[in-house]
């Protein structure tokens, strides 16, 4: 694990490249800076959208004009000039490379340390195979890996189609499945929901659309496929997942690899709909650029994620590992509308350097005998601020509502802060809400104990923190749990002493 330090340095070096990213001149395939009805029309036109979609966007845009930015979160940042942002740019063509050999070996090593399979690296880095060309000098593995990933993706598509699962970019779904999109888009997060969600509704670039038909158990985790296709989904991502009666789907977004993006503001919206007896499991690993060691730069991640347990006995489960971004403002929530429905929120939020995290969940109990569970693990290091903000509420008619909440915070060093802001409202007497919270400091004695046994300072912190978050890590799909574990150690570099 001595190698950990190297990884950390490599990731840092990649971090430096972000800086250059901001200076990159993007090609001409873009709208002028700023936001207006014309820009919204331009985006819609570029995407060949039907008239109803444009109207939907315009309605959101007009609403957005009347709104003001929320200020209640415990985060500080300079005022954003929304007229100084590009709202449409065609995906930047990456420099075409034909084999992994052409990619900076340092970057490859980072991927390797994170344990990301080569074929996915190839896709993430945009390697395109030159068909019909045999270059004996080129490492065989790279080419194989690419061809392999193409075939994997195709196999996935065929298999999903056989099961009747619709899985495509939302821009395609708007054209190919307008009835589904019209029925569900904005039904969980209305266009008027909040400043950033409304902005997203007006200008969203792309994202994923998933529909799982009644009684179907999605035959695979919608993860690997997504990760391969993830690049260029852009800063205003829009995702809509519908699980019809008695269906099941597990979806993973994000990736442990360092994410380079020159867009500073990210405002995504994710909507989940679970009909009777359906279950959706949604996992996130977020590792956007957090800014440099002086706190300059970094992504502002203002996300609205909400699931609607619309049907009886439906279930929605959110799991998130948040390590990146300069500012995270994110509350994946569940509306427990159906009787006997249940919602879960498992979270690991790590902040280091000058990062600010204000994250948590809302569990809104509306149906009878609904239950929810919240396990939040916040880790603050460096000069960061880490806030858990949560709401658990039971409606007057939500008899028998149950919630269990456990919020644990771990502080590393003495210049960071951890805050817990739980709101609990029970409007009927039969609700049972339990709340547990702890805040602890990673103790010098524990670290010294580990170090005396031969672990380095970084390894010791990584070990203790991974122990702290273990319960949540176990909720991640297996393959990602291992990556996430390494990511957590890397994220906390330089947090002590």
């Amino acid at each position, binding site marked *: *694990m*001595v190698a950990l330090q190297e990884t950390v340095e490599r990731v840092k070096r990649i971090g430096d490249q972000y800086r250059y990213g901001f200076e990159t001149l993007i090609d001409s395939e873009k709208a002028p800076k700023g936001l207006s009805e014309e820009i919204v029309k331009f985006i819609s036109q570029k995407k060949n959208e039907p008239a109803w979609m444009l109207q939907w966007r315009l309605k959101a845009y007009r609403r957005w004009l009347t709104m003001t930015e929320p200020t209640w979160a415990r985060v500080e940042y300079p005022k954003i000039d929304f007229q100084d942002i590009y709202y449409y740019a065609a995906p930047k063509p990456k420099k075409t490379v034909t084999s992994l050999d052409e990619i900076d070996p340092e970057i490859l090593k980072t991927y390797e340390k994170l344990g990301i399979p080569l074929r996915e690296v190839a896709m993430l880095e945009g390697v395109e195979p030159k068909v019909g060309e045999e270059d004996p000098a080129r490492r065989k593995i790279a080419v194989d890996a690419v061809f392999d990933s193409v075939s994997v993706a195709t196999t996935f598509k065929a298999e999903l189609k056989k099961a009747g699962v619709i899985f495509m970019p939302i821009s395609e779904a708007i054209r190919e499945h307008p009835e589904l999109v019209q029925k569900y888009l904005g039904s969980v997060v209305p266009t008027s929901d909040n400043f950033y969600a409304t902005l997203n509704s007006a200008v969203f670039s792309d994202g994923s659309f998933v529909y799982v038909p009644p009684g179907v158990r999605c035959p695979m985790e919608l993860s690997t496929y997504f990760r391969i296709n993830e690049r260029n989904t852009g800063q205003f991502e829009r995702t809509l997942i519908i699980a019809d009666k008695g269906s099941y789907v597990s979806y993973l977004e994000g990736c442990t690899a360092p994410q380079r993006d020159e867009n500073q503001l990210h405002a995504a919206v994710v909507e989940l709909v679970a009909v009777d007896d359906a279950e959706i499991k949604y996992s996130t690993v977020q590792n956007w650029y957090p800014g440099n060691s002086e706190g300059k730069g970094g992504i502002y991640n203002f996300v609205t994620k909400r699931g609607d347990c619309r049907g009886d006995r439906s279930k929605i489960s959110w799991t998130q590992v948040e390590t990146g971004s300069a500012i995270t403002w994110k509350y994946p929530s569940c509306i427990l509308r159906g009787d006997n429905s249940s919602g879960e929120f498992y979270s690991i939020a790590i902040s280091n350097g000058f990062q600010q995290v204000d994250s948590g969940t809302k569990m809104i109990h509306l149906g009878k005998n609904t239950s929810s569970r919240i396990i939040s693990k916040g880790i603050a290091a460096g000069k960061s601020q880490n806030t858990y903000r949560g709401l658990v509420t039971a409606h007057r008619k939500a008899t028998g509502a149950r919630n269990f909440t456990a919020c644990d915070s771990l502080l590393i060093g003495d210049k960071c802060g951890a805050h817990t802001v739980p709101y609990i409202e029970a409007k009927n007497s039969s609700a049972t809400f339990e709340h547990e919270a702890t805040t602890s400091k990673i*103790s*010098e*004695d*524990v670290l*010294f*104990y*580990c*170090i*005396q*046994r*031969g*672990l*380095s*300072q970084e*390894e010791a912190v990584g*070990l*203790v923190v*991974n*122990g*702290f*978050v*273990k*319960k949540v890590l176990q909720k991640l799909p297996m393959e990602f749990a291992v990556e996430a574990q390494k990511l957590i150690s890397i994220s906390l570099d330089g947090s002590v002493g």
Partner: protein
Amino acid sequence: MALLEIRDLHVGVEHREVICGLDLNVHAGEVHAIMGPNGSGKSTLSHVIAGKPGYEVIDGQILFKGEDLLEMDPDERAAAGVFLAFQYPVEIAGVTTMNFLRAALNAQRKARDQQEFSTPEFLKRVRKVAGSLNIRQDMLKRGVNVGFSGGEKKRNEILQMALLEPSLCILDEIDSGLDIDALRIVANGINGLRSPERAMIVITHYRRLLDHVVPDVVHVMSKGRIVKSGDKELALELEACGYGQFEDAA
């Protein structure tokens, strides 16, 4: 050459000198007992050798295998063969004892440019040592020291010591909080590790442990210095007369 050589060591904690000119030579194969009243600097000495932060070495030298130990980081000292069995072993929630042992062992082996053990080889070693210390398998699957009794924690220290195979073992009041049966198990574990290549420093208040782990040399520490050294008979004498006589001598 002594395995451990301490010359005229002066150590301060929060502007107070707590070790005031200590000399000690420990050779491979020897077991040294350090006895003394509370506050005489025994635990401080063990911490300074292991490299715990918070102590200021004002003067003096510590050589380990001829190398300047004070120039080494604590994890480097561990990899070089210094092991401290803690008086109060800490709890680490969520990290199983098995994982912890493995992380520690591999970190040390890596630092020494040795190959990591394969999983079967590692498991074999742990099982063997655990068995001899009466440590049940389920204990290894629990968080490090979480919910362990006092005796279990101390046995876990010996387990780590046996697995890491250090050349210098410092046992800081390993006998505190142990009943007679647990003491016997721990003492047997320690005796099993005595070897011509390995030295031990056993810090204790009581002669009781030294009946089981018979030392080659007994030192009496008082007010930050070693005030008397002798053979195992010295421990008996101390038990009979107390530390009072040495308080004056120091």
